[in-house]
């Protein structure tokens, strides 16, 4: 018959090994700069950056005439070449950090306007602009939005003052 005298020592050995492994795991995890819980901070920074850029574009130069003065975003939406104008202005705001190196932010922008006499249907997305890269599905984009009052037609509709929602998906490449 085999001797079973060392069972307690074996269990103690297992317990000690587990404690040492979990301690090593915690220590290594705590000292790494980028922990698992930090991944959403990037999204927050990107969202704040995009919101700030759209707010800058949506603010008129002269804020004492807030109701009547045109903001950059309104002028872009009413212009025929809004694709190029939006890309230039938006990338100028989000993609450069002073005189330093360019960041690597890419975006796709759309806007939504309501077709008249259709209160119940979901308004369709109208393409506005995008950076050189298109969205492939592997990215991890955040969405920022901005309301603008514009005086444009929507599709085949007549020109009138309307509220449109500009939506920008942006991600780091």
């Amino acid at each position, binding site marked *: 018959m085999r001797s079973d005298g060392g069972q307690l020592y074996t269990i103690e050995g297992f317990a000690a090994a587990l404690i040492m492994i979990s301690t090593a795991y*915690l220590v290594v995890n705590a000292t790494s700069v980028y*922990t*698992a*819980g*930090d*991944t*959403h*901070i990037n*999204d*927050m920074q990107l*969202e704040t950056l995009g*919101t700030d850029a759209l707010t800058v574009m949506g603010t008129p130069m002269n804020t004492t005439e*807030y*109701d009547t003065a045109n903001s950059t975003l309104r002028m872009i939406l009413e212009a025929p070449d809004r694709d190029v104008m939006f890309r230039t202005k938006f990338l100028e705001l989000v993609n450069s950090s002073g005189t330093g190196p360019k960041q690597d932010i890419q975006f796709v922008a759309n806007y*939504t*306007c*309501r077709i*008249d006499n*259709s*209160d*119940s*249907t*979901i*308004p369709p*997305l109208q393409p506005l602009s995008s950076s050189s890269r298109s969205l492939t599905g592997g990215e991890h984009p*955040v969405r*920022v*939005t*901005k*309301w603008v*009052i514009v005086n444009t037609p929507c599709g085949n509709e007549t020109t*009138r*003052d*309307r*509220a*449109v*929602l500009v*939506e920008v998906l942006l991600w780091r490449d």
Partner: protein
Amino acid sequence: MARLNDDAQWIVLMGFLVSFSFFFLALVINQATVVGQTTAESVIEFPKNDIRDVRSIIIRTESDTIQKDVYAISLGRKNAVVYYTFPFTPCYGKYSCTQIHFKSGVTEYDENWTSP
């Protein structure tokens, strides 16, 4: 029948205590790893910018077509119910008032706005 040996009851009891305390420690450590993530997520979820943005449109424009734009696009693209009374009603003598309601399913915001 063999006589039961009950000499080591204290050791078994202490073993139980230690294992339970390990269990609770593991529970605490398990929660600690997701604390940063849930905090960041709840900050992202809170629609501060959405409310400020739609509010600035509402108080700057007095038009029933723009009111319909705000209803339809908020519901269609932002998953938010936005409602405000229009035309603005006269109140306090020389001002006009409106009630702004915003609900995104998680966050609800109501305001009685008085024109300056």
